[in-house]
């Protein structure tokens, strides 16, 4: 029983990384009808830029936590900047209409191009090996009635919950949030009311960069290492989480991400680490066939309330 509870806590912690990335996927799918393949890259960039800055003794030769925290903050900023560049080349300069389902393959393919180009650039620069990230001691733990909780992971989980909550409130109550929801539901009607997609779509990419950058930074802190390929594993599991939770629903992505964390822990426990992707994506296929709207999705798939 104790072991089970401990695994449950571990799953929750692991899942919180997937949650943030799954929410990023949900935003672009829900609003732009666009499966953004640059998301794993943005996740990786925040970690790698943070690591590279630390490695070269930047920024400003600070030492201790001030140093790695600032390095990661710059990493997150880099993820946001790259995401905005991606917006230009997946949407703005290509002759696609925002939210047009018939031409959604074009941004998808160009975002896949970004994924491969950036990953390989980073690989050329730093090789494929994982690098140790000099963050806080990941083994600081809290003992709750025999169950060990790592403090950095707990903080990460709280930050994740907070950021998702803030995002949901923004979508619900702010002017920009309403504009985004209007584009998500009916781009034509939004256009008729004078909502300028060209101005508001970059907001989606900014949020995507922020969420992925944050997830990448938290990952670097929690696991103490970064790698040029770290985005692919996380990204694919986050897609699975998004689908299991229900396409187009933010809270669905949260639940789905946690489910994938749980599934992963159980799989590692019973079958070993090699089978994780098989079980996770197997679960995704089962959900798509038997219950395509997912846990919290809308009955017309992908058209839920954001």
């Amino acid at each position, binding site marked *: 029983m104790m072991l089970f509870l401990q695994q449950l806590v571990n799953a929750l912690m692991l899942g919180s990384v997937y949650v943030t990335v799954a929410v990023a996927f949900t935003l672009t799918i829900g609003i732009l009808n666009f499966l953004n393949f640059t998301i794993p890259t943005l996740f990786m960039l925040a970690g790698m830029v943070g690591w590279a800055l630390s490695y070269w003794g930047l920024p400003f030769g600070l030492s201790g936590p001030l140093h790695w925290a600032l390095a990661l903050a710059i990493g997150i900023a880099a993820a946001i900047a790259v995401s905005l560049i991606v917006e230009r080349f997946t949407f703005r300069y290509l002759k696609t209409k925002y939210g047009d389902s018939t031409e959604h393959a074009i941004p998808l393919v160009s975002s896949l191009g970004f994924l491969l180009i950036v990953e390989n650039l980073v690989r050329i620069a730093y090789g494929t090996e994982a690098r140790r990230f000099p963050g806080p001691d990941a083994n600081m733990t809290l003992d709750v009635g025999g169950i060990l909780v790592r403090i950095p992971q707990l903080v990460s989980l709280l930050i994740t919950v907070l950021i998702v909550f803030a995002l949901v409130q923004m979508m619900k109550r702010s002017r920009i949030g309403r504009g985004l929801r209007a584009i998500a*539901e009916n781009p*034509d*009607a939004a*256009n*008729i*009311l*004078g909502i300028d997609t060209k101005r508001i779509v970059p907001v989606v990419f900014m949020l995507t960069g922020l969420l992925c950058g944050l997830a990448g930074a938290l990952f670097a802190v929690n696991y103490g290492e970064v790698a040029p390929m770290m985005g692919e594993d996380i990204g694919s599991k986050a897609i699975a989480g998004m689908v299991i939770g229900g396409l187009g629903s933010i809270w669905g992505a949260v639940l789905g991400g946690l489910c994938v964390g749980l599934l992963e822990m159980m799989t590692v426990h019973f079958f070993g680490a090699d089978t994780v992707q098989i079980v996770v994506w197997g679960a995704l296929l089962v959900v798509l066939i038997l219950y395509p709207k997912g846990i919290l999705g809308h009955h017309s798939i992908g058209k839920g309330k954001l």
Partner: protein
Amino acid sequence: MLEVTELDVVYGRTRAVKGVDLRVGAGEIVTVLGANGAGKTSLLRALHGAVRPAGGRVVFDGRDLTAQSPAARVTSGMVLVPEGRQIFVSMTVHENLLMGAYLRRDGREAADFDAIYDRFPNLASRKYASASSLSGGEQQMLAIGRALVARPRLVMLDEPSLGLSPLFVERLFGLLRELNDDGIGILLVEQNTAMALEIASRGYVLELGKVVLEDSADALSSNTQLTEAYLGGESLPETSGA
């Protein structure tokens, strides 16, 4: 107020609107009639900026808006109530009105929301209900309310009576008259010819993208040839190669 000259709209190889001249004076109700495929919706889309015209000019209150975005037209005072209402069903009634006032920054929107709720008590009692729970007629009222909170001086409506019960059609046309009495110009695209000509002062008849007739509403009403030719309708010589 609205001056349209030599307007051309082209989709790929199809010329949907061919050299249309059209005028709506301040506080006037003007109707555009025509069968399905005559180019009415294409005309409205070009007037509203969703489609960039291939030629011609759209001038509103002396400002050339031809190359401007829909947003620029909304802020200049031209709004469109699209065909099929297109309200946001994932939002509440009130959120839909907020979307109509999206471009307003004057901070006095609340008074206009109240005015809409006074005008449409059905909407007031359902303010925080999902817009999807409204009946078709109520949705049309919401679509018009959403257009009005932008404080327009010209409202363009695309087939507003489509799919409404006779009772709601009566109310709709009554409402358009009231708005007109308040000084709002109206450009009405309708299939319900009789009703449209009853409230309009002038009308245009479109056929295959061209204006084939332009006259006062009275003259058009008494023109039996028009009704025959027009209601004979669907004479679309589709010359597709397929």
